[in-house]
């Protein structure tokens, strides 16, 4: 009797474990390897979207482990390494704001339906307000209205903007902004064009 009752009681206890509705998950290292293993098992490569995309790198792991708020001693060295990996071109970093506008508006690219080698957009308007003329803008990121008007277009600012678009995580480790250059979404010239869209006094962003 008693021997049979014990597993029953354990089962009941397990059955009563309440699920955690309404609470963000705080992922442990074990959770990270569990989810990673499930992703590996339950996803497949399609087109340009290869399985390499679910292999975690140091940024993702640190942010997952610290719920996007890593302590400075964790964040700093990774940010520095990300900054070092940015390939800043020599010379002028301002491209053509007109081309930049098209890149900012376009949300295509990097999906399994996209052809290999076809140029991607920057998806900027999905998350940011930029030109006052475009009413259909997202609010996941901060408004960049009059961005260059407020900051000017000096060499330092150009370098910062280029770097931020290339790899936002070099400046704020767990930023929700994709690493546009680092991930191979945008090339050097496209990022330069976006720098111009943000900083050029003639760009609609700064009107």
């Amino acid at each position, binding site marked *: 009797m008693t021997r049979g009752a014990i597993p029953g009681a354990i089962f009941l206890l397990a059955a009563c474990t309440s699920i955690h509705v309404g609470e963000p998950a705080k992922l442990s290292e074990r959770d990270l390897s569990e989810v990673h293993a499930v992703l590996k098992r339950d996803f497949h490569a399609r087109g340009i979207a290869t399985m390499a995309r679910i292999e975690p790198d140091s940024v993702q792991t640190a942010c997952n482990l610290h719920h996007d708020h890593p302590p400075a001693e964790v964040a700093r060295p990774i940010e520095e390494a990300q900054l070092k990996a940015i390939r800043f071109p020599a010379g002028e970093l301002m491209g053509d704001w007109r081309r930049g506008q098209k890149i900012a508006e376009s949300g295509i690219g990097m999906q399994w339906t996209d052809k290999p080698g076809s140029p991607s957009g920057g998806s900027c308007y999905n998350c940011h307000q930029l030109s006052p003329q475009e009413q*259909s803008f997202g609010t996941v990121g901060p408004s960049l209205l009059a961005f260059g008007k407020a900051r000017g277009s000096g060499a330092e600012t150009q370098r910062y903007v280029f770097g931020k678009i290339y790899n936002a995580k070099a400046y704020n480790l767990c930023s929700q902004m994709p690493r546009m250059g680092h991930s191979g979404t945008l090339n050097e010239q496209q990022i330069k064009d976006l720098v111009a869209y943000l900083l050029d006094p003639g760009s609609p962003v700064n009107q």
Partner: protein
Amino acid sequence: MDESRRKTLTRAGAASAVAAAVAAGILRPQDVLAAWNKDAFGQKTLADALKSIGAAVAADSNDIVIDAPQIAENGAVVPVEITSNVPNTKSIVVLVEKNPFPLVAKFDFLEGAVPFVKVNVKMGESSNVRVLAEAGGKYYAALKEVKVTIGGCGG
């Protein structure tokens, strides 16, 4: 309208079902009363469309009630509900002023029908929806502006 267009059925899948319906006496060629107004539906401006249906002159009327959203999230489906309180309304006409072909629909209400209709229309861009009611040989008009937005990143 020529009879041949009415009796030929081009789509294989539908053909047998319709043939059966005709055989069963459900459908008869004379079922549809008025011929489709090719001229009016083919007009590309509001003025020409109104002229084509003989409604170039129409008095504004508060007796036509248009219920439609001021903002439509997608122009592919814009619901419009219309009630005409103009006495003896014989027909209701729906136009979307800025569509490539403004005339969208004409509903004739015969003995027994209430001059009311709800229909989903396509709108190419923000525009006035113009509704006419025909009564006693005259046309009455009302307007409702609908703004069309496109939202989202396609998801």
